[in-house]
């Protein structure tokens, strides 16, 4: 045994360290510290989830060592590299038997383990949580045992494995703390698996199925049945996930834990103790946040437990949160936890398992009130931009009980539901703007509810974590290590940590995400034609090339020779039927087209065709979005074949043949010189267009991935999804939402203002 006066480096010289979860936040911090501070280590082996050892090495090289934690900083010349073989990664899936490997892994040389791997999602279903965290940990222990090694095992748990306690929380592993329920892990896992079956079945019951379909129809209705089906299935899966995670949370709360994560970590501790590992340290950090010092101050990856709330506040989304002002917000920087783990690995416990709370609440408490004050002043001095780019004015941080918060949320939900129902019933009242607004409001409320449900308990816990054993280890460190591997939470100056380190780091994290919520692209440059080999370019006509609908064509054709009073009367008549048409179009473009074209029934075909001779000058040109013409020309110059797709009638859009290579329009059946009002072919819309694009691509021998498509409405969604380069032009609100979600180019094209300010010209003599 090494003597007490030895440094960590001396203790670990030539030793082999196994780190799991190195692709995670804490894992990276541990690995980075080892590579930087402990070149004396014999070897570091990493267990990563990957199909093969080569893939694991590749993952290590790019996903782990490529991270910002490993560049710059105080890098030292080290032999601990992939090239020397002293740093190595191997594949292993902790949920599969034998770590999912063909040949059992030889871990006989491992002297110490830092087990960081775990699922840390608060929304994962209980069965997955138990499989990953409990069984996964046992699988590693099993692999070590089989190799015949009995290393010093440092297990990273969580302070919240202690359950929802108030007051002092002792450093005792789960099962040994006061007043804890006995939990049968096997039974819990069985039941959790059974839930999954139950909920999968339930989700397919008609009542739920109808709901998913209704929701999907509302979102992408005009995009056609397959699109609705896909969307409904997505909704169903999401619902199953939510139900499972809610059941897991319910069960965990029933047992005294805030969520399935805490419960699974507690059960892991119990399982490890039951395994009787000779040298075991359970490290229980509280809420891990950005680095205090290493690898650099403010190093963080993604947003952590407390951050969504802080950001939601900074962005003005929430103004109150269910909590108490004197609660201790127990944050701990990631490098402190990493150092504690490494120190524990170098100092095996003497006399049985050791539990260490790595927490700040007991020695250096950060009251929620104080944190709130720092956060408020930070976001007042350096506000975040809102959706329009203006600084958010953050309100005072208000505290309230969770019942009050949830009641307010319910009221908001109710109001929005009524609003949406009204908007759907009276389509004229609705309009894009109202629809969009309601949708945004609902999303904000949903996000808030989720935040409150998931993270609420963590900021509401009125407790203080004892850290006696952690302190003991800290005090026993060699004086050199006390600085290099410090995990002294008393050194944290909370105001400066928050305003100088953590909040700026958060800002950095959300910056790219903020940029994506910038307003629509208006300029040509940003929505430029994607590079690639010449292929096909599909343009929807209504709404993209022309700012019209098939109804406009019809109205123009019927009224062009009417005297003004007749025209007014006629237009009023059509307007009276508009709500019906709009509602039908919302449901399905195909329905709408069929229904609308009945207006042509019994109209004389030859006469209408003759009337249509003036369509180019009188109707099409004033409605052209000239940007589309330039775009089409550029596509043709590139060598693309341009195809115009329109629901308008062939004889009305005929002049557009000269604009593109191909024009695909609707055709009416004609009998005895009159139109029957029926279409000769099914309307070309939604998935029909997607199939057509695919067929044309085959015909012309090009890849769909190289093709371009321009659409304006959600009924174009299947076509846009089918091609490699989709562009949403003046998208309706539903398409805009889908386009943003997928990162498609959003273009805003206009007709010429001259069309409205031109002097009226008599053409007919």
């Amino acid at each position: 045994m090494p003597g007490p006066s030895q440094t960590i480096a001396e203790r670990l010289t030539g030793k082999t360290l196994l780190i799991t979860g190195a692709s995670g936040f804490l894992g990276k911090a541990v690995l980075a510290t080892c590579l930087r501070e402990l070149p004396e280590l014999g070897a570091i082996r990493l267990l990563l989830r990957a199909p093969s050892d080569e893939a694991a090495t590749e993952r290590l090289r790019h996903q782990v060592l490529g991270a910002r934690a490993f560049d710059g900083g105080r890098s030292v010349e080290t032999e601990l590299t992939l090239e020397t073989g002293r740093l190595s990664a191997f594949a292993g899936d902790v949920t599969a038997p034998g770590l999912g490997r063909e040949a059992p892994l030889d871990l006989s040389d491992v002297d110490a383990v830092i087990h960081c791997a775990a699922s840390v999602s608060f929304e994962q279903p209980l069965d997955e949580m138990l499989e990953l965290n409990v069984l996964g940990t046992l699988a590693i222990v099993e692999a070590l045992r089989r190799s015949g090694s009995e290393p010093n095992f440092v297990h990273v748990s969580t302070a919240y494995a202690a359950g929802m306690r108030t007051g002092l929380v002792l450093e005792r592993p789960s099962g040994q703390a006061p007043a804890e329920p006995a939990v049968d892990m096997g039974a819990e896992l069985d039941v959790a698996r059974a839930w999954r079956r139950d909920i999968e079945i339930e989700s397919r019951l008609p009542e739920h199925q109808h709901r998913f379909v209704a929701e999907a129809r509302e979102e992408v209705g005009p995009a056609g049945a397959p699109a609705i089906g896909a969307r409904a299935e997505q909704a169903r899966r999401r619902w199953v996930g939510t139900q499972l995670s809610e059941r897991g949370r319910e069960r965990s709360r029933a047992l005294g834990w805030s969520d399935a994560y805490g419960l699974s970590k507690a059960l892991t501790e119990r399982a490890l103790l039951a395994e009787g590992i000779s040298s075991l340290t359970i490290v229980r950090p509280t809420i891990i946040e950005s680095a205090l010092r290493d690898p650099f101050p403010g190093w963080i990856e993604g947003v952590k437990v407390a951050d969504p709330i802080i950001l939601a506040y900074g962005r003005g989304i929430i103004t109150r949160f269910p909590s108490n002002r004197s609660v201790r917000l127990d944050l701990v920087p990631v490098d402190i936890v990493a150092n504690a783990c490494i120190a524990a690995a170098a100092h095996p416990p003497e006399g049985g398992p050791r539990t260490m709370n790595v927490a700040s609440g007991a020695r250096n408490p950060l009251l929620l009130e104080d944190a709130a004050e720092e956060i408020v002043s930070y976001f007042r001095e350096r506000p975040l931009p809102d959706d329009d780019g203006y600084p958010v004015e953050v309100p005072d941080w208000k505290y309230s009980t969770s019942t009050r918060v949830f009641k307010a949320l319910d009221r908001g939900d109710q109001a929005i539901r009524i609003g949406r129902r009204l908007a759907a019933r009276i389509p004229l009242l609705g309009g894009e703007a109202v629809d969009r607004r309601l949708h945004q409001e609902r999303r904000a409320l949903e996000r808030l509810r989720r935040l409150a449900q998931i993270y609420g308990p963590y900021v509401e816990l009125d407790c203080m974590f004892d850290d006696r054993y952690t302190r003991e280890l800290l005090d026993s460190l060699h004086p050199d290590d006390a600085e290099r591997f410090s995990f002294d939470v008393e050194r944290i100056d909370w105001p400066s940590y928050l305003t100088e380190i953590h909040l700026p780091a958060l800002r950095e994290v959300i910056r790219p995400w903020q940029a994506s919520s910038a307003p629509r692209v208006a300029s040509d440059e940003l929505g430029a034609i994607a590079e690639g080999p010449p292929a096909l370019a599909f343009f929807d006509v209504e709404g993209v090339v022309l700012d019209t609908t098939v109804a406009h064509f019809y109205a123009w054709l019927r009224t062009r020779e009417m005297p003004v009073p007749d025209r007014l009367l006629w237009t009023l008549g059509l307007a009276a039927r508009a709500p019906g048409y709009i509602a039908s179009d919302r449901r399905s473009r195909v329905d709408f087209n069929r229904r609308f074209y009945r207006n042509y029934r019994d109209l004389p075909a030859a006469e209408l065709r003759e009337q249509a001779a003036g369509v180019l000058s009188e109707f099409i040109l004033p409605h052209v979005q000239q940007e589309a013409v330039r775009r089409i020309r550029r596509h043709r110059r590139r060598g693309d074949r341009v195809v115009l797709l329109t629901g308008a009638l062939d004889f009305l859009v005929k002049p557009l043949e000269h604009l593109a290579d191909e024009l695909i329009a609707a055709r009416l059946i004609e009998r005895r010189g009159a139109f029957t009002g029926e279409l000769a072919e099914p309307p070309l819309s939604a998935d029909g267009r997607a199939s057509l694009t695919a067929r044309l691509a085959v015909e012309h021998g090009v890849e769909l991935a190289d093709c371009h498509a321009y659409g304006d409405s959600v009924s174009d969604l299947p076509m846009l999804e089918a091609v490699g380069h989709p562009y949403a032009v003046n998208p309706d609100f539903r398409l805009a939402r889908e386009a943003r979600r997928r990162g498609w180019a959003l273009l805003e094209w206009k007709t010429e203002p001259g069309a409205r300010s031109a002097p009226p010209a008599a053409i007919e003599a």
Partner: protein
Amino acid sequence: MSVTGRPAKPVRGTVVERLGGLARRRPAAEREASVVEVTDKSPPTVFQAGESFRLERLPVGSRVVYPPPPMKGLADVESGIAAALDAPHEMDPLDSLLRPGMRLTIAFDDLSVPLPPMQLPDVRQRVIEQVLERAYRAGVEDIHLIAALAIHRRMTPAELRRTVGSAVFDAFHPDRLYNHDAEDPDGNVELGPTSDGEPVTLNRRAAESDLLVYVHVITATLQGGKKSPAIGLGSYRSISAHHNVHSLRHSRSFMDPEHSALHHSAFRQGDVVEAAVPVFHVEATLNNQMYADPLGFLAKPEARWSGREQAIFAGVKRLTDRAPARTRRTLFQRTASPYGVIGVSAGAADAAHEVSLDLCAAQQSVLVRGQADIVTAGIPYISPYNVNSIMNPVLVMSTALGYFFNLYQGKPLVRPGGVLIFTHPVERDFHPVHHPSYIDFYEEVLAETTDPAEVERRFERSYAEDEWYRHLFRTSYAYHGAHPFYMWYWGAHALEHVGEVIFVGGHPEACRRMGFRRADTMRDALEMAEQVVGRSPSLTHFHCPPLFYCEVE
């Protein structure tokens, strides 16, 4: 007769004989009253600015050049026309050229002249009616009437009816009265190159006629002459032989045929046309009476407006300042001018045209001594290419730097490196039916470069050959794809000559895109101009319209 030489002998046998010897008398020198100096007692000066007016105070000591007053028109236009047809220059009388069984084609200038359009009846109608009457009398049956569009937009049936009159329209439209189609592959013939190798295309019907009667309306020295059939009935290919940057930079100015490369080239084409088909030219020259009462006073110096006229002006200005764009455009585009016909000449191209040029000089030339550092002018609402339409930014440029700048003989009114200040709102408004290629020219070409030579080299061909533009040009009422390019080249000479162009009240984005500066007030514009031409500059205001030109010494 040479292209540029003037006939040595006095013109004979025309109604303009009464002007005898006017050409040698140099009417410009008799216009000293047209150049007025601004004093501290002068009233503000009226500037046209699109469909509105601005009143600007010019610095004391500035010169204002006013248009000469309108000449008295012929009292009996019908007999004037008859006399010209009966006693043409260097050709036999029309009657003797007409015989039964012949193919007769009458081509006439399109709606780009005169500006604004003429109060009815249009002089073209009067000429055509008389020509037709003689043709009927001679037993000619195969008669076609063709609007000589060049690559302008087609005239609508309504516009054709207005130009030729209802009787002719009803008898001939649409089969025998139609627009020339410069892009019709079958409707045009190549007549072979000129002595300088320029291609010559002519409308097939005209080329295959036994006689082509060309009816000109002359309101500027640019117009008329033997180039007209070659251009008006030509094709993009033949027109581009001289409508290019090189020719236009060497046309100083194109209002002075003797010194215009554009004219020299087009006259060579005219020679080829005349060799292929006998052309009987009829040129009707108009005076400059553009304003109808009660707005006739707008042609007079502001200091001479009566109280009533000032009140009318105040009312009109108030109306145009407040009316929405569509209303203003409708009002202005509806106005027609009570031009007087000051002469009709007919016969061989050069001889007949000579008379017109003399009449133009008599009506329009003003002698101005010395160039100015700064020239100001108000750009009106109309140019040859936006009749019944919208004056878009590219047309503003061509009107200002093409037409206005070039209304000189001798030297430009502004000195080399001087500054031009115009008043116009320069709104980014395009007529979607008439000017589709202009929109793309503005958005695509001007975004890249404003240099005429580069514009021509990089972009002209793709626009000229674009199938969509061609379709719109042939079947709708759109200008040819290449037309905006010509508009830009129209200003090429001015762009080379001046140091800065400033638009007072111009839209910032449109002015920047075209490479011009803009100011909110004339005062600001003058400040900006001083940075280019130095302190205490000389300033001349070109008070046009009505149309006139300066002979600068």
